[in-house]
């Protein structure tokens, strides 16, 4: 299993004299601290990562107790919830917690953040990344500089809304001639001690307790992925709906965030369009 977490450049935060945020309010207040330094405490994208929409969804899920999309493809958010998510994103930009989409494109073009001079030089001091994939950000900074932050809460003990998903899933085809043998092989891949050590965290943190314990004994789970996974274990997480991961749905959401960022649509207009697009698309899929 894997979940997106917040990771910060400890040197930049120390230089600015800022603490890692623990609540949404603290996150929004961070922009002021970083203004003088011409840097940003966090970065979110509207490309394939779609972290901008992801974080906004977590915020609204925690705020409302709803789930953006159910496992069977029902949209859990109302148009008003989507507007709240887009308003939250806009407030991150307005408070200079993150760069606008225009600023991000101008600085990095189409490059991934971990390849960006802005991140490597410390002008961007935070990333929102899968625990299993944070290594690429660690690799471009000095050892130990990137640290794991807490999952944000509302300040009143509510830290729900954060999401996890299986990094990799296996299935046996209905037409498989040897289903028992396939299942035995799958059991080996998922639960066998030797296999767990070989695979390490390449599939994220193993969901199987056998594999996880074996990996922990061998020292295969350590560093940021482990800290991220441990913190996620303590939360009341939501499993991401596969419908939320559909490329078309991601595209609708990313476009809405982009339109709000560029100011070509108000959050109300973008929310209405996004709600309509997702609803129609989900209906089409179910036909």
């Amino acid at each position, binding site marked *: 299993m894997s979940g997106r977490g917040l990771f910060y450049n400890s040197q930049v935060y120390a230089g600015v004299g800022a603490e890692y945020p623990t609540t949404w309010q603290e996150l929004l207040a961070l922009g002021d601290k970083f203004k003088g330094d011409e840097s940003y405490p966090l970065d979110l994208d509207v*490309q394939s990562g779609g972290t901008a929409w992801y974080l906004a969804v977590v915020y609204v899920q925690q705020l409302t107790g709803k789930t953006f999309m159910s496992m069977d493809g029902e949209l859990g958010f109302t148009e008003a919830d989507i507007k709240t998510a887009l308003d939250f994103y806009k407030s991150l930009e307005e408070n200079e917690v993150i760069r606008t*989409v*225009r*600023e991000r*494109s*101008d*600085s*990095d*073009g*189409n*490059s991934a953040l971990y390849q960006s*001079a802005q991140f490597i030089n410390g002008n961007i001091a935070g990333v929102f990344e899968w625990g299993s994939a944070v290594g690429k950000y660690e690799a471009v900074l000095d050892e130990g500089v990137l640290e794991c932050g807490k999952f944000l809460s509302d300040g009143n003990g509510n830290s729900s809304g954060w999401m996890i998903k299986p990094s990799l899933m296996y299935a046996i085809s209905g037409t498989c001639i040897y289903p028992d043998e396939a299942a035995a092989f799958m059991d080996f891949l998922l639960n066998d001690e030797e296999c767990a050590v070989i695979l390490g965290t390449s599939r994220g943190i193993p969901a199987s307790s056998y594999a996880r314990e074996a990996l922990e004994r061998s020292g295969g789970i350590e560093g940021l992925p482990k800290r991220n996974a441990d913190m996620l274990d303590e939360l009341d997480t939501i499993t991401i709906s596969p419908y939320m991961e559909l*490329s*078309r749905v991601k*595209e609708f959401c990313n*476009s809405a965030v*982009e*339109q709000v960022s*560029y100011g*070509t649509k108000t959050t109300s207009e973008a929310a209405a369009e996004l709600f309509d697009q997702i609803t129609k698309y989900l209906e089409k*899929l179910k036909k």
Partner: protein
Amino acid sequence: MKRNYRNPVGIGKYTGLLLTAPFIIGFSVFTLCPFIISFVLGLTETGLGGQTEFVGFDNYRELFSGGEFVNSALVTLRYAAVLVPLKLIVSLLTAVLLSLEIKGIGFFRTAFYIPSILGANLSVVIMWQYLFTSGGLVNRMLGILGISPISWYGEPSGALAVIVLLRLWEFGSTMIIFLNALKDIPPDLYNAAKVDGCGGISAFFRITLPLLRSTIFINLILALIAAIQEFNAPYILTNGGPMKSTYTLGLFIYDEMFVYGNVGLANAASWLMFAALAVLIAVMYAVSGRTGGERK
């Protein structure tokens, strides 16, 4: 067929067919069959589970009902309308300069041709990306000249301009065709014009351009086809952004096919692109009087 004095290599009834068979087989397998299959796929719709359903011309209707396809077609037309004339002008003028017989001209001919060999490969695109980012070389140079930095990747018009500039930089192939055509113009014509008091610029418009009409036309067709099919540069440089301002038809077809798994719509869009290009080129041939055998 037996060999004899009249037929020393034994050419028979089917020899021609035999000799052209490799091409016919290759063309049938790798071009004609995919072409037909693509049309058939354009009449189907694929569900999430991979199940395919025949939907007639619904995909075509969906494409014309607005949205992304129309937007990407407009982006592609805008891109072609800016790039094609610019490319022809720049490559023709460069070819005229490079046709001058001066010492070391071979070096310049090679230097100008090299970018077109490189294409939009990753290293070129990475270089291009860093030239035009906010802290990149281009904005720094503009700063030295006292010009405010330009938002190349952040503004829709700037992003399209970056892609146009990349393709314009690769004008070598167009230039080489012009260069060869220029060499075919008899020098006597220029000498005679000179005797009659015709200057260099006048000779360019009265001799060079009219004699290059066919070459300009061919280059126009080639550049237009390449521009309408543009994919690589926006895919790597901007991924169609910002705000879909560089989302060309090529990107639309790729996304529908490989990102959204919408096989039918992607193939229908490919056919529309092919049909639009075919009509456009046919009209250009007709307007220029190149149809029906001899050019008028």
